[in-house]
């Protein structure tokens, strides 16, 4: 177990300024530029490593947030502009996931999303992985390499908005589709995926599994 650390290289430098054309800046961005609320929970157990890992993968991060008022408050505050924006445009704001276990976000060794698997909300920012309720993946100044998965060995994004810039996707191997990236959910995910000034190289997916591109 523990494939995430042994199979994956995800490192990055300090966050840069977000380009204005990617995310419009708001007042809250000055005070809470990213979902950087940290909270530590320590539990000492006497158990085998594998058992501990399995238990860790079942931790529901949404539930952890609910039991930590400050985390919940700051998370809600950060999400406020997005919610208001949707309401002003007559749209339903994105719903927070009901459950978000580590098991749901990483699936090794051959599942979906070798590097990053996003089923609802992930924000990957300068080397830190944090969670939001906005259905958003952000990758910047990062290298996502040498991951393996059935689909989306680098990133597997379903119905998420995804923005990646100044990043490298290399050596990711999919046994089905999407060596570097697998973007699903055309109504939201594919139409709101932006890839800017990035390098995608040496990723592989089996030719026999590929389907023609729809034009």
């Amino acid at each position, binding site marked *: 177990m523990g494939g995430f650390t042994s199979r994956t290289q995800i*490192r990055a430098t300090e966050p840069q300024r977000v380009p204005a054309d990617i995310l419009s800046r708001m007042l809250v961005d000055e005070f809470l530029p990213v979902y950087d609320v940290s909270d530590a929970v320590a539990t000492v157990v006497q158990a085998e490593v594998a058992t501990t890992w399995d238990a860790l993968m079942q931790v529901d991060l949404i539930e952890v947030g609910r039991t930590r008022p400050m985390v919940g408050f700051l998370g809600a505050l950060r999400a406020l502009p997005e919610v208001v924006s949707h309401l002003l445009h007559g749209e339903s704001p994105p719903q927070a996931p009901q459950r978000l276990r580590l098991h749901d976000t990483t699936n090794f060794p051959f599942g979906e999303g070798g590097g990053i698997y996003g089923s609802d909300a992930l924000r990957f920012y300068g080397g830190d992985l944090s969670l939001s309720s906005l259905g958003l993946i952000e990758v910047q100044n990062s290298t996502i390499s040498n991951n393996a998965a059935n689909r989306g060995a680098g990133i597997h994004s379903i119905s998420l908005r995804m923005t990646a810039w100044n990043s490298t996707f290399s050596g990711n191997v999919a046994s089905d589709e999407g060596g570097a990236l697998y973007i699903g959910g055309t109504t939201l995910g594919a139409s709101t995926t932006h890839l800017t000034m990035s*390098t995608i190289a040496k990723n592989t997916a089996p030719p026999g599994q590929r389907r023609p591109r729809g034009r």
Partner: protein
Amino acid sequence: MRFSGNIVDGDCHATDDGVVWMSQGSNIESPGDSCDFGESSDMVNMTSAQLRLDALADNGGETETHLPMMGSVVIDAITAEQCTEVLPGSEQRLVSRPQGIGCDVGSVEVVPAP
């Protein structure tokens, strides 16, 4: 899916007709032409000899990168003016863009030899 200033050494595939690849310019695809990179500033069907990407390695910065080698088509393929519009500031390693007469396509900006 929108692309700006990327290197795609591989190809793009959609699993249904609803997926739209939208180039916003300055992308390079090798070896084929599968990502609908149709803007005048895009380059497709590039050979690996034209792309000349080095292997993933430590080229400075916090992360490993694919450094374009001398003579690569990605070097200075974006005018400085276009580069400012696409993504101002620095590249993946935090080297400032541009270096030379324009910006390099992809996540790395090659620093010219003094």
